[in-house]
């Protein structure tokens, strides 16, 4: 990882916050199925970045650190929700239940049923619009793994949605 000039001070954090917060809310919301929970997770990820700012700001891409924190928090949230769902016997509305994201909400419901890595890669690719190389940096996996994971996710989604799979 290349280290670059260190940004210091609140103004640098503010710039990162303003740039990343909306994107992180969307990223987390797509992974956990709730805009409110997505906002909480994005805020928590950026709070952690602020606490670690001397370290995070020294990175070439502080945004990658924030994304990784957001993805991990979203995965943790999803796991807790899954555990709660297994534990609860009463059919009550769950706090992280899907609220719907417009006409293609079915897409995100299916994404959330994917394995964790596929879920993360799909969200980073489509919601955050990241190139494969940056996804690899965020998740700390190889580009090859990103490609194969995305391929598996797209294949599963295409099969479920009756969509045409595009071979790139």
């Amino acid at each position: 990882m290349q280290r670059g000039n260190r940004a210091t001070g609140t103004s640098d954090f503010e710039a990162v916050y303003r740039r990343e917060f909306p994107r992180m809310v969307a990223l987390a919301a797509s992974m956990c199925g709730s805009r409110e929970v997505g906002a909480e997770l994005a805020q928590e990820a950026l709070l952690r970045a602020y606490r670690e700012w001397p370290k995070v700001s020294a990175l070439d891409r502080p945004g990658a650190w924030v994304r990784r924190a957001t993805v991990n928090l979203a995965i943790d949230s999803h796991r807790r929700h899954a555990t709660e769902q297994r534990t609860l016997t009463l059919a009550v509305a769950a706090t992280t239940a899907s609220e719907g994201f417009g006409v293609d909400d079915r897409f995100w419901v299916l994404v959330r049923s994917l394995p964790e890595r596929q879920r993360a890669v799909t969200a980073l690719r489509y919601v955050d619009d990241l190139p494969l190389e940056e996804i690899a940096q965020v998740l700390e996996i190889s580009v090859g793994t990103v490609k194969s994971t995305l391929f598996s996710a797209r294949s599963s989604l295409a099969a479920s949605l009756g969509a045409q799979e595009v071979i790139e």
Partner: protein
Amino acid sequence: MASIDEIAARAARDVRADVRTVIDVDAGLAAIVGDTGRRASAPPSRRGWWAVGWSLVAAAALLITVLVVRDDSVSRVVPATTPPTQPTASTQSASTQSTVTGSTVTGSTAGTVVPVTASCDEATLLAAVSALFPSRPPAPFTGLTIDACRGGFAQVVAIADQSTCPTVGQPCYENQPIWLQDVAGVWTFLDSGTGISCGAGETSPKIEPACAAFGAAVVDPRLSFEPLDLPDPGCSSAGDCTVVLATESGRLATFRTNDHVLTFVDNGATVDVRVDPQWVARPLSFGPDDVLYLALSSRTSADSGGAIAVATSGPRAGETVASSGVLLDTSGDSTVVATADGLVQVGCCGHGERQPATSDPLIIGWASATGVALPPAATEAWIEYAGDGTATVVRRDVGGERRWVLDSTIGGRDMPMLVPTDDGGVLLWQYDGIGAPDVPPVLYEGRPDGSVDRYDLPGFNYPSVLHPARFVVLLGADGYVRIDLP
């Protein structure tokens, strides 16, 4: 029919538009850094902002701690306003511990020169860093950030002074990551440069002792690496990957999933594995008699597939000699594991009392290169999980059972890679890239005498081969390497 990309792009637009209703950047920012003079709007989520409030209290406490406690392990940005001081040796009268200029002096013998430890004080470190550039008075750095300072080593980032540059705003110096070592109470240069750290794959031999002192995981110095000229996995979105495997005798081979060509690395010999084009073939493992086992999945349906055994030597090389209709999970939520009977499928996301469980489904049994079903192997290994968080690796062979209790919690989302070794031990790889990505990969070796060796291998997250002959093939940032265990 819409493509999956079109559907995904539309769905992404929807979610981005939908979350705008809960985004209030000013309020969120103010909750973290305080009132920035902007509009204090209503919080977007009551439940979330309670948490943020408490987090803010915690952050404030953390900042107070940073400012008050002179602990030598915290990171902080330091302006260069304090006159720099240098550590000095000192003659001390009887005392248990005294602080002298920039240094902590320990010792209690009156009238003698006692050892001096270089101080982690920011002014001392800044002076030491500035002294590395004697030809550039005044000091080219205006301050520094202390990333770590303990155990006789310091890792700092010196903040470059841009005001003296020919064009203001165009730095003559960039901020410099610098590593220092305490030599008899004086900070001396150890290493410098971007791109090096205690992180995975970023260490240099010079800083390894520092990383060890900081408590960071470094590649085990007992290991030596042999770079292998093997192609990058290079999986494309069409599923074109090169997979590295090893036969039971230790021959390395690569398998290309696009054209199903198996290539032995030692002599370049190739085997065209004949697979019906309707299937996507993914290699699983070599088995006895150099038979290669592959998982098949349909290009058109998630409900068909299976596994095949293909001879790679002898008159039937390239032919399927055994097959199974057991459908494999291709979602990434399972691991295929070799057992005495053959290959079994172990589900993801946790474990029961044992992995693989005796109830895990057999995908395909072992077969010879001529297709004859083979009896169960004499040796196998598994993991038993106690309720207290510890795990025991068990090996069973003709001599009975051997057990190794591991000193740390293993097991994450997937079953760790595990093989019995030829000398009566076991090798186990532990890395959980999803569940615990911050925990570096570890190779455990259970020795025949019952002891356990642990090798930290940060940066090598993905093993291709753990071989019974006690070597491993790992994929790192610079490609594949082979490690023969000491």
